[in-house]
């Protein structure tokens, strides 16, 4: 009986998870002194903007294009969604610059850096599919401009920016899932390895 228990995949996964991320690492009650700097705030600011994006996007998806185009409250949530995206990219770029100049891949943190960089790359088409899903002249202009660029690199047959149904599906389901999964992995890896120390401390 004990042999079958130890071979259980749930036990193995649980033991591996606790070994990789014990509760005190997963939800720490303090951070090193060097984290008390504004440059360390841009990562959490990116997450805060992402929460606003997903919340406002969920409301827009529930109500639909007629609501976001023709009602005052629809315009409000449409604007909240768009400006949260602008803010998300703004703070994410400053976060990226900060981590680049800290060489944040030091001390076995390569996967932290890689997941962050891939999140940025996946966030770009997530935003693009949103701009072409607005159902207005702005979306029409952006999609007809973008199709030439995408066709020139040979992906137009698979990723057609003038196909509203395909772009909307990418925007409200596939790409947000990818972004949230990548951000979750990124945060869990930060928890596992700890926040990168300043370079002079890392050398000690």
């Amino acid at each position, binding site marked *: 009986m004990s042999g079958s228990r130890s071979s259980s995949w749930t036990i193995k996964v649980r033991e591996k998870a606790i070994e990789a991320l014990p509760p005190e690492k997963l939800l720490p009650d303090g951070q090193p*002194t060097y984290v*008390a*700097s*504004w*440059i360390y*705030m*841009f990562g959490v600011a990116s997450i805060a903007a992402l929460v606003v994006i997903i919340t406002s996007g969920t409301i827009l998806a529930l109500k639909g294009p007629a609501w976001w185009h023709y009602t005052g409250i629809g315009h409000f949530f449409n604007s909240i969604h768009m400006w949260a995206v*602008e803010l998300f990219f*703004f703070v994410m*770029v*400053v976060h990226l*610059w*900060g981590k680049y100049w800290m060489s944040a891949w030091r001390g076995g943190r390569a996967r932290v850096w890689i997941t962050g960089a891939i999140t940025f790359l996946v966030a770009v088409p997530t935003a693009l599919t949103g701009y072409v899903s607005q159902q207005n002249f702005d979306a029409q202009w952006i999609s007809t401009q973008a199709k030439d660029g995408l066709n020139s690199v040979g992906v137009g047959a698979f990723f057609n920016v003038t196909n509203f149904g395909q772009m909307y599906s990418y925007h409200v389901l596939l790409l947000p899932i990818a972004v949230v999964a990548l951000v979750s992995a990124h945060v869990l890896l930060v928890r596992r390895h700890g926040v990168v120390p300043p370079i002079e401390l890392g050398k000690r």
Partner: protein
Amino acid sequence: MIHVLGAIFNLSHPAHVVHWHFIKLPLANVIVIGLMLVAFAVAIALPFPGAASRAAARRGGDSS
């Protein structure tokens, strides 16, 4: 309100573009990039509230 803002920011014209050698960027994007650089510099230069007192307390704790 929208009309008041519209009076301040007249958008009924082609975008202003900054063109320098091979670099060609809309002015709005140049402004946003400039603001990101400012935010980056300020985030490094500006002291974080309570950071100095926490560091001093930590040094005091270490020496005792």
